[in-house]
């Protein structure tokens, strides 16, 4: 990998470098490449084609906001280590399929406790403490000085940011991405639901694809002694396609109360030793507010529960998006300077809470074959029917699936096809009734009613009922980013997001802007609108300002054209995943 042939094949004599500079250039050129780093980089590059993130990243339409709820909860959610997740999945499956097991009694015992205090330790992380109260419907998490408390009964959550010395109050009305420890505990009522044990794996759908392929290769239940104390000890050895070697998990429980005492994972993952230990205690009292978890009395208190105008706009936009008609759409993106028949088509089918998206492989066509007097939608229908398409994402109402696969080249480019290797299941983002697809920036109801990213601790929303700019007869919803982080160009922006909303036309967002670095900033302008049979407004043409970045640094607008059919019959099988 070390390139040593140093030469200057100059176009002119001015190429000669002064000796010191030439030596410096030579030292750069001859510096060996770090082999491990090259391997990592190539591995990441290879994964691009099979990742749904690719389609998100390849999508020239930047995403407006992180799906609600994820950002402000980020610190409580320690990244789920793959091995731990796999073990968790295997454990839960093990419990679920063993109705007579004493371990089911353990689960039942846990649910009768006033409080469960869990501490998770691993060599690489700060200890994580978790308090759960099935009785009080409270859950709290503490990592170092960081604290979050969820009062599920009041649907309120509190989040303390030590860097800001600020305690945020937030609504707790959205589902979340749980971490593995909480999954372990939360899974117990799932397994015991309706008073009967079941092996119905739908109840474990929240584990996503991690549970697929997990296999318990050995199990051992015995009595273990620790000083004077004896424990019931279950040892599971688990294999998984993602793990080179089997990993071991040991659960200890009190033989009398059946309450778990510890849960340990150990093994080798990717050649490195992995060790995690979780201990369980059952106190009679626990934290009922954030201050009991160590939040300073003098912390600044900020209420981010949307109120009044903001709440009404957020709710109205979400409702319009949810209630949108069923449809089949062909959405074509092209440079603004291109003709309507030039571009990349995406097909979308939506039926209630289910959707399917397909990309088509098209190649430039001879403009002379395009009739000048024509039905654009009809033309595109015929066009996508004549080329190969492949699904990129699909939702069956319960889970989202992203495609993994690769292209197979052919002599004739039109015969190039995409071979699907697998469909990866993942939990839907948001709630089942208002899910946010991974790729939503081609869906008409999302372009007109985008996820707003409200509420979020670091976003302060305000409403201007009489904006001085933007489309006429609109109100302006703007968010200020309040938290400034070092080196983060997006932080501290006065107008992080701006949405001009037409309240008279089903709260359609006619223009929206998001600020930030070049890659993240975007401006969407709805140029034409139509109304669905049920009366919902949606865009037929949207302009994305400066969305195309040319190699020379210049930019160009792109256009999204929406051809939407509300009458077509959409068979249910469109949303069935054949795994």
């Amino acid at each position, binding site marked *: 990998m070390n390139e040593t042939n140093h030469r200057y094949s100059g176009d002119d004599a001015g190429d000669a470098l002064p000796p010191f500079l030439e030596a410096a250039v030579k*030292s*750069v050129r001859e510096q060996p490449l770090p082999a491990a780093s090259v391997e990592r*980089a*190539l591995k990441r*590059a*290879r994964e691009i*084609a099979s990742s749904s993130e690719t389609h998100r990243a390849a999508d020239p339409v930047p995403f407006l906001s992180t799906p609600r709820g994820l950002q402000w909860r980020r610190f409580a959610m320690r990244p789920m280590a793959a091995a731990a997740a796999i073990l968790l999945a295997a454990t839960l499956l093990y419990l679920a399929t063993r109705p007579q097991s004493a371990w089911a009694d353990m689960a039942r015992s846990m649910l009768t406790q006033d409080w469960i205090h869990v501490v998770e330790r691993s060599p690489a992380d700060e200890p994580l403490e978790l308090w759960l109260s099935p009785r009080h419907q409270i859950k709290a998490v503490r990592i170092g000085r960081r604290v979050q408390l969820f009062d599920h009964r009041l649907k309120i959550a509190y989040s303390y940011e030590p860097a800001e010395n600020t305690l945020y109050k937030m609504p707790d009305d959205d589902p979340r991405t749980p971490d593995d420890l909480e999954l372990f505990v939360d899974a117990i009522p799932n397994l015991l639901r309706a008073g009967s044990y079941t092996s119905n794996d739908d109840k474990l759908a929240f584990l996503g694809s991690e549970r697929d392929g997990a296999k318990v290769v050995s199990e051992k239940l015995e009595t273990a002694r620790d000083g004077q104390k004896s424990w019931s000890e279950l040892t599971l050895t688990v294999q998984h396609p993602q793990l080179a070697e089997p990993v071991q998990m040991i659960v200890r429980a009190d033989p009398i109360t059946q309450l778990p005492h510890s849960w340990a994972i150990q093994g080798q993952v990717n050649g490195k030793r992995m060790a995690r230990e979780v201990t369980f205690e059952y106190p009679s009292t626990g934290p009922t507010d954030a201050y009991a978890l160590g939040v300073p009395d003098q912390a600044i208190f900020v209420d981010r529960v949307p109120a009044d105008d903001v709440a009404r706009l957020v709710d109205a936009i979400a409702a319009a998006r949810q209630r949108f008609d069923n449809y089949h759409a062909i959405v074509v993106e092209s440079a603004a300077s291109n003709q309507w028949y030039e571009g990349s088509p995406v097909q979308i089918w939506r039926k209630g809470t289910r959707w399917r998206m397909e990309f088509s492989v098209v190649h430039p066509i001879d403009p002379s074959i395009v009739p000048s007097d024509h039905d654009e939608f009809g033309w595109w229908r015929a066009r996508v029917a004549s080329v190969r398409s492949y699904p990129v994402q699909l939702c069956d109402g319960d889970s989202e699936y992203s495609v993994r696969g690769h292209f*197979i080249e052919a002599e004739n480019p039109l015969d190039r096809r995409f071979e699907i290797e697998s469909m990866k299941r993942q939990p839907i983002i948001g709630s089942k009734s208002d899910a946010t697809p991974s790729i939503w920036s081609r869906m008409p109801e999302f372009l007109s009613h985008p996820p707003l990213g409200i509420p979020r601790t670091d976003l302060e929303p305000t409403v201007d009922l009489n904006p001085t700019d933007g489309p006429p007869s609109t109100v302006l919803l703007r968010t200020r980013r309040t938290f400034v982080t070092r080196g983060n160009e997006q932080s501290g922006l006065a107008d992080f997001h701006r949405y001009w909303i037409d309240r008279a036309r089903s709260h359609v967002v006619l223009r929206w802007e998001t600020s930030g670095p070049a890659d993240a900033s975007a401006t969407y302008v709805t140029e034409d609108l139509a109304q669905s049979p049920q009366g919902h407004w949606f865009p037929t043409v949207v302009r994305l300002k400066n969305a195309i970045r040319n190699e020379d640094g210049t930019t160009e607008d792109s256009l999204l054209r929406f051809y939407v059919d509300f009458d077509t019959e959409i068979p249910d099988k469109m949303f069935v995943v054949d795994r």
Partner: protein
Amino acid sequence: VNDWDSFVAEHGVAVFRAAWRVLGHRQDVEDVTQEVFLEAFRLQLRTQPAWHWPALLRRMATFRALDRLRRRRSESPLDDPRIGPLLDEPDGVVERNELADRLRQAVAQLPPREAAVFCLRCYEELSYGEIGESLNISSQAVGVALHKARLKLQAILSEAVKGEEP
């Protein structure tokens, strides 16, 4: 091995190398490599004429790496771990690595166009015509930018050496 894997195998090291020469920082170079291949993937999905991939990818890697180099310079000094522990390096390697880093820091101080011309010419050995095409400037303008870059780099590096003399 599928198409994409072959494509990455064919061009991956060249992309990494182009970014490495500009940045010399593992994590950043890995990120840039991924960015470049993401863009390439996107280009493949679009209806575009056939690209001359080897040159295009190297140019993209150089441009993205320069963007990152400037951003890094504005955020923090160039003191990140670069090529790992130097203690066991054979004689002369430490000095050469230091020299390489000095040049990178100096390039980060150049105006964007001059930095791009310098890197494409001296690191990637592209012709004036290829450089001019990618920057949308004439070959003559490439020569002028390269001349200015050389003078400035010489001045910056000389200044740095003087600053270290007792």
